[in-house]
């Protein structure tokens, strides 16, 4: 049984994928993972997750070009310039 290991380096930091171990149950998985990722105090916490339990999402439909949801979907430079020019010319 393959267990994916995620380790947290310091309290408050995100858990990061660090590798995997092959172990028959959680007890063995913990023993292996402690040896691999914790014997120098390099992790404050580990998540051991059976690989089969991970639901991966890696297909992204982009039919609608979701640019309006992102900063790169907005180009305000030209409009800002025009607005400033109008304001200083007193045409507003």
């Amino acid at each position, binding site marked *: 049984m*393959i267990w994916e290991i995620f380790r947290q380096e310091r309290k408050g930091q995100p858990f990061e*994928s*660090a*590798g*995997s*171990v*092959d*172990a*028959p*149950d959680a007890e*063995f998985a913990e023993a*292996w993972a402690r*040896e*691999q*990722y914790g*014997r120098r105090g*390099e992790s404050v916490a580990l998540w051991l997750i059976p690989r089969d339990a991970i639901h*991966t999402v*890696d297909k*992204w439909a*982009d039919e609608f070009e979701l*640019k309006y949801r*992102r900063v*790169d979907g907005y180009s305000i430079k030209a409009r800002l310039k025009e607005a400033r020019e109008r304001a200083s010319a007193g045409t507003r």
Partner: protein
Amino acid sequence: MAAVEVPHDEQAFLAYVQGGGQVETTDWLPEDYRRKLIKFIEMHGNSELMGVLPEREWILRAPTLQRKLALTAKVQDEVGHAQLIYRVVEDLGKPRAQCLADLVDGKAKFHNVFHYPTKTWGDVGVIAWLVDAAAIISQKALLKCSYAPYARIMKKICWEESFHILHGRDVILAMVTGTAEQFELVQEAVNRWWGPLMQFHGNPIAKEEDPMYQWRIKSQGNEEARQQFLDGYVPQIWELGLTVPDPKLRKTDDGVWEYSEPDWEELKHVVTGHGPCTDERLALRQRFIEQESWVRDIVSTA
């Protein structure tokens, strides 16, 4: 900005990895890429596993308790690296048991430096310092490997290797600041290991012609790695008053190291299973695979 899709076509895939793209186990991988990955990563795993044997021989003979513990820790690190690496190979389709069987049957390779004897404690120091230094140069270049699961475990491996180099330097410094005999043990070990060290990064094939570079499994060429090794470590050797057994060795004005042509025939001969300790070490590995099979049986049926 659509999500990046890994191309499902060999040529496009090649362009993708050459442009710095990385892939996951679940992505479509060209057959040739998968085969090359398995070959390369398996050899790395074999080298970690076989690399502990020259040092293991000295655990019982280490000069102090501190050294004995440090060496034991290092051996544990390397075996741990082998376990992580074989997991990556396994996910690519080759089971660990098959890797081990091919290793002891002499069908798979491991690094040239692990085919040689560890004559004295000076050799242990030189292995931990210079052999590990040469290895870490190759390994750091794998942090950018196009196969992301391998690149990710290299982070941990490189981190632990940096401790190994320091441990090696500490062993060497203790000896070069000790008695004349101790200094001589280090010099003799440098003389013995220089040839294999110069062969370690492989023949100077142009990186564009190296399939491992083409697929961006490696991110640097062989000669690039060797130059980096020479540049980093020859000055460190010289500053301790040690010499390098190569009269042609020098750094030219344009910053390139010149050296005598390494013995490529010896390299080929050794890595194809004809090194001075190849048979003995593979026999030991074989013995332990058999001896510990009951552990695997118990764990796999737990």
